[in-house]
């Protein structure tokens, strides 16, 4: 026996956040922020959770980039056009933040003291990567703060939409 979906139930089913692009972005950005907080407090969580959570963190980070793909794709074209200085700065800042994130993640893996040991991989941890990871992970915090400030209007707009 099959039950045919009435128009109203179909409409109701499609009112979830996953059917709205802005709401999908908002939800995944929240997931990203929460995961970022978890991976940023190794003193509280301990190294093992910090390192494994960092591996999982890659997923919401990639989804964040893919969900904002159109914005990134238009960067080169919009950058050469007549843009406001603040928009140009925003573009440069986001690119810098992306590379800093790669920097933190990559140096973190090379400074890993848990994952490789648990996987039985013999990797010598060099103090240089530890220092680089330590310094870059401190730098990324104010960079993220300014990233949030630069996109504050979008965050407010999306939050209002989520409440509706």
């Amino acid at each position, binding site marked *: 026996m099959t039950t045919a979906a009435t128009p109203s139930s179909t409409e109701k089913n499609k009112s979830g956040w996953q059917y709205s692009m802005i709401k999908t972005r908002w939800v995944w950005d929240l997931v990203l922020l929460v995961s970022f907080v978890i991976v940023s407090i190794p003193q509280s969580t301990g190294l*093992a959770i910090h390192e494994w959570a960092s591996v999982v963190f890659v997923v919401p980070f990639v989804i964040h980039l893919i969900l904002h793909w159109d914005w990134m794709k238009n960067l080169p074209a919009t950058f050469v056009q007549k843009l406001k200085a603040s928009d140009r700065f925003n573009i440069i800042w986001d690119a810098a933040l992306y590379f800093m994130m790669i920097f933190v993640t990559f140096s973190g893996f090379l400074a890993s003291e848990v994952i490789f040991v648990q996987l039985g991989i013999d990797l010598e941890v060099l103090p240089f990567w530890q220092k680089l990871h330590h310094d870059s992970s401190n730098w990324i915090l104010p960079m993220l703060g300014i990233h949030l*400030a630069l996109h504050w209007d979008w965050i407010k707009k999306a939050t209002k939409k989520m409440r509706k």
Partner: protein
Amino acid sequence: MNYLAEDFGKRFGILLAITVITGLAMWGFEFTDYAIDINENGFGGDHDGEREREGGEGPEGIGVLIYILPLVKISAMTLVPAAIWVWVSKLVNRKKTA
């Protein structure tokens, strides 16, 4: 969610390529004099705090603060610059419109 699935492979591939290229470029730093110096002489900092947590004991006497202080630190380091940024840009905008 269709948007996420659309061209996922291509987009993921581009991100992966940028990440791998950046990672390989970063590896080059390991051979600089600066890196060699740090590897030979150390930099005076390590993950003492984290190691202590791994052992199940935080620094003596701070108790539950071991969980709160790192949160306070990252919140301050993130939100203070954000607040300053918003405040300064509002000031600049007000001057422009005045």
